């Protein structure tokens, strides 16, 4: 990088017919790839740790290595009367419910925001931005105070309500980008080709927005599934996977938690890789055809 500074003098001192000088290796040529590898190793260390310790033959707390076993994988749901699995199941249910509601509401808002003109636009944008700019403790504590004030008992429903709330904004942002990139001429073409308004929506608009909606749904699910802070304030006696971990962190986390986390990780990883590979393959096929 710094070499570039003294360049022109060097140029001047060389004769007009100076020999071809081999190019310096730019920093990006080796430093960046090496850095990237190190960065990934760093990113993956705790994941590897979690995975490895899912095979630890631990008794209660899973702190020191006591030998290899498959037992934890085979008997995930037996420890503590299945508390880990129950928490995991709750997380899945909550994630799905919050995702469905948030995606539906958020998609509707996104379409309206891009496609229609109305006065309160600024206020609405602010209302959508605020939840993303509000720290989770505030969201969690505020909702908890509210539920208490109106005397709503906390259970699965309150968690779902809370999760939906913070997912909506993310859905709007994600889907809005998709709507904005949707050429209105496509819908006009649909109308022009004898499609009634509802046919145009379901056969043209919706399929074209689908990738954005799916992305928004996946994001919502991920946010909900991994949320702890807001859940902690609004879950009452219901356990979720992150909450389970937080609570057991004070008494030693059983290896079964690592098993579940690792399984989710592997599942998601396989899913994503399959999607990526098939996309790349499709792109390749496309390139060949085109």
């Amino acid at each position: 990088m710094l070499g570039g500074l003294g360049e022109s003098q060097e140029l001047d001192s060389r004769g007009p017919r100076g020999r071809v000088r081999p190019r310096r290796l730019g920093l990006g040529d080796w430093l960046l790839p090496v850095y990237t590898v190190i960065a990934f190793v760093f990113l993956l260390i705790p994941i590897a740790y979690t995975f490895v310790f899912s095979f630890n033959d631990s008794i209660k707390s899973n702190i020191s290595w006591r030998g290899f076993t498959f037992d934890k994988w085979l008997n995930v749901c037996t420890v503590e009367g299945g508390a880990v699995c129950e928490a995991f199941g709750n997380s899945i249910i909550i994630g799905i419910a919050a995702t469905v509601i948030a995606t539906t509401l958020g998609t509707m808002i996104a379409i309206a925001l891009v496609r229609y003109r109305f006065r309160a636009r600024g206020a609405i944008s602010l209302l959508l931005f605020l939840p993303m700019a509000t720290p989770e403790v505030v969201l969690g504590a505020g909702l908890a105070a509210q539920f208490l004030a109106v005397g709503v008992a906390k259970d699965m429903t309150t968690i779902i309500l809370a999760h939906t709330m913070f997912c909506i904004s993310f859905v709007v942002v994600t889907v809005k980008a998709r709507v904005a990139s949707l050429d209105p001429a496509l819908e006009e073409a649909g109308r022009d080709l004898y499609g009634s308004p509802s046919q145009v929506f379901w056969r043209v608009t919706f399929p074209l927005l689908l990738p954005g909606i799916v992305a928004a749904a996946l994001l919502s699910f991920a946010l909900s599934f991994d949320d702890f802070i807001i859940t902690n304030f609004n879950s009452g006696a219901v356990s979720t996977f992150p909450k389970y971990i937080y609570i057991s962190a004070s008494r030693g986390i059983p290896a079964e938690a690592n098993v579940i986390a690792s399984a989710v990780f592997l599942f998601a990883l396989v899913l994503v890789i399959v999607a990526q590979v098939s996309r790349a393959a499709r792109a390749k096929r496309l390139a060949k055809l085109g």
Partner: protein
Amino acid sequence: MAFAAFQTAEVVPQAPRKRSRIALFLLLPGLLYLVLFFITPLFSLLLTSLQAPSEFGDIGQYDYAFNWQNYVTVMTDYWPHIVRSFGYALAATVFALLFSYPLAYFIGVKARRWPMLQGLMLVLVIAPFFISFLLRTLAWKQLLSDESFVITSLKALSLMAPDAHFTGTPFAVIFGLTYNFIPFMTLPLYTTLERLDLRYLEAGSDLYANPFTVFRKVTIPLSMPGIVAGTLLTFIPAAGDYVNASRDFLGGPDTQMMGNVIEANFLVLLNYPAAAALSIILMAAILVLVGVYVKRSGTEDLL
């Protein structure tokens, strides 16, 4: 997948249609939801923050009042935590940016020629998303505990004082925050860098700028939207986080952040007005900071 959320596609100019009942139908349910479960809670938080203890009440009993001194009290009691929260969050944001920028640059720019590799690396960036962040944090706690391989080696190499420790220190908390928010920093950076038109860089070098100057004058300004989005996505949650700093995770008594204080007041001390006042302060401070930052960096349309 999840990271698609950070990707923005080309925007096709749309002629917004006139006002219509359809728009109302589309907007109303979602907005009503947010009013009910976001605005109203914030409002009740505001009311709570002004409450005063019940006159003859037991612990944790308060009455509605206009006790604005609560704000003064929490400010005087907890100003170190306020400062600490923003300090840690800032540090974590800076570290995450420094860590992520080269990574995102490699994935988004250098790896363009190999879409498969690019895809794979993106998967690796978001991989941490798929494993509970609490578990990841605990894993670091174990990996960096006093008797761990890393710490004992560092001590053996005299890179660390023999009586020093890592967990429970500010470094550990900042480390944890940085680690946990790296994907939130990397992905927006990646999406802008992936769309970075290399022809601008070529134009820069064609106009006598050396690689470093091109980076400073062209690459950085052009990736500003990604930098802003990434820093916001990191800073906001980091400032309000209380898991990393929790005494059961990477923190200790002198690393407690605003989130921990709010939690303690809410759940242990049962001092709801204090917790609410702190929440309001935290939120207001973040909004002001974000507003100023976004204005300064000239990326208002980002929101």
